[in-house]
C-alpha cells in the first residue's frame, strides 16, 4: 500500500520535473514546478514531516512560485492577452469547474466537528521540530531573520530605478 502510493507520487514528481525541463513555455514550466513541489510535500507527509509539508506548500508553492510567475509575466510579454479571446470556451468552463471545486470543500466544512478541540495528541513531528528550532538551532533560526532582512534590502536596492 505504502509502496504503491510512493510509486505514484514519485512518478508525478519525476514527470512534472521532466515537464519543467522540456516544456518551451516558461509559464508551463512554472506550473509543472508547482505540481512537483506539491508531490514533494506529499512525500514529506509520508515521512512524518507534517510541518515541512505545510511549509513547502506555503513558502514554495505559494510565495516563491508567485514571485516566479510575476517575473515571467513582467519579462516575457505574451500575445495571449491582446485581441479577441481565442479560448472563449475555456472561460465559460471556469465557473462550473470552480463550483465543482467548491462542492467538496463545502462537504468537508459541513462534516467538520463542532465544539471544543480534542486534547492534544502525543508528541509528533511538528512538536519535535519546534523543540529543535527553539533549542539546538536557536542561533541559526535567529540568523535566518537577518538573512531575510538582508535579502529584502538587497532586492529594494537592485530594483530601484537610477535617478537622472
Amino acid at each position, binding site marked *: 500500500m*505504502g*509502496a504503491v502510493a*510512493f510509486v505514484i507520487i*514519485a512518478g508525478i*514528481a*519525476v514527470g512534472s*520535473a*521532466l515537464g*519543467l*525541463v522540456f516544456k518551451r513555455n*516558461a509559464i508551463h*514550466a*512554472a506550473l509543472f*514546478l508547482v505540481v*512537483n*513541489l506539491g508531490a*514533494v510535500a506529499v*512525500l*514529506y507527509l*509520508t*515521512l*512524518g*514531516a507534517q*510541518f*515541512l509539508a505545510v*511549509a*513547502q506548500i506555503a*513558502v*514554495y508553492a505559494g*510565495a*516563491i512560485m508567485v*514571485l*516566479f510567475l510575476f*517575473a*515571467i509575466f*513582467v*519579462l*516575457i510579454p505574451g500575445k495571449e492577452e491582446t485581441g479577441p479571446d481565442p479560448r472563449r470556451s475555456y472561460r465559460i468552463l471556469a465557473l462550473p469547474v470552480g463550483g465543482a471545486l467548491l462542492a467538496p470543500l463545502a462537504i468537508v466544512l459541513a462534516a467538520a466537528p463542532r465544539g471544543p478541540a480534542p486534547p492534544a495528541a502525543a508528541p509528533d*513531528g511538528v512538536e*519535535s*521540530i519546534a*523543540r*529543535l*528550532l527553539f533549542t*539546538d*538551532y536557536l542561533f*541559526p*533560526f535567529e540568523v*535566518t531573520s537577518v*538573512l*531575510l532582512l*538582508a*535579502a*529584502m534590502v*538587497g*532586492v529594494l536596492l*537592485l*530594483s530601484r530605478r537610477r535617478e537622472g
Partner: protein
Amino acid sequence: MVPESWYLTLSAVLFAIGVVGVIVRRNPLVIFMSIELMLNAANVAFVAFGHRQGSGDGQAIVFFVMAVAAAEVAVGLAIIVAIFRLRHRLSVDDLSLMRW
C-alpha cells in the same frame, strides 16, 4: 513501509533532472526553477535520512534550506529583472560579459 533508499533514488533522479534543466535551457527564469528543483531534491534526501535516524535534525536543516531558497529567489529575480532592464533581452547566451 517504503525503504529510505527509494526516497534517495527519487532525490537523485530529481537532482539529475534539475542539472539537465540548468544545462539545456537558455531562459534564466527556467534555469532558476531548475535550481529550485535541485534544492528540493536535496531536501528530500535530508528528510529521508532524518527519518531513518529517528531525529528531527534533518527536518530542521530543510527548514533553513527553505529560508535560504526564499532569499535566493527574491535576490535572483531582482537581478534578472535588472539585467532585463539593461539589455532588453532574456537569454543567458547574451550574458557572456563576465566569462573568462
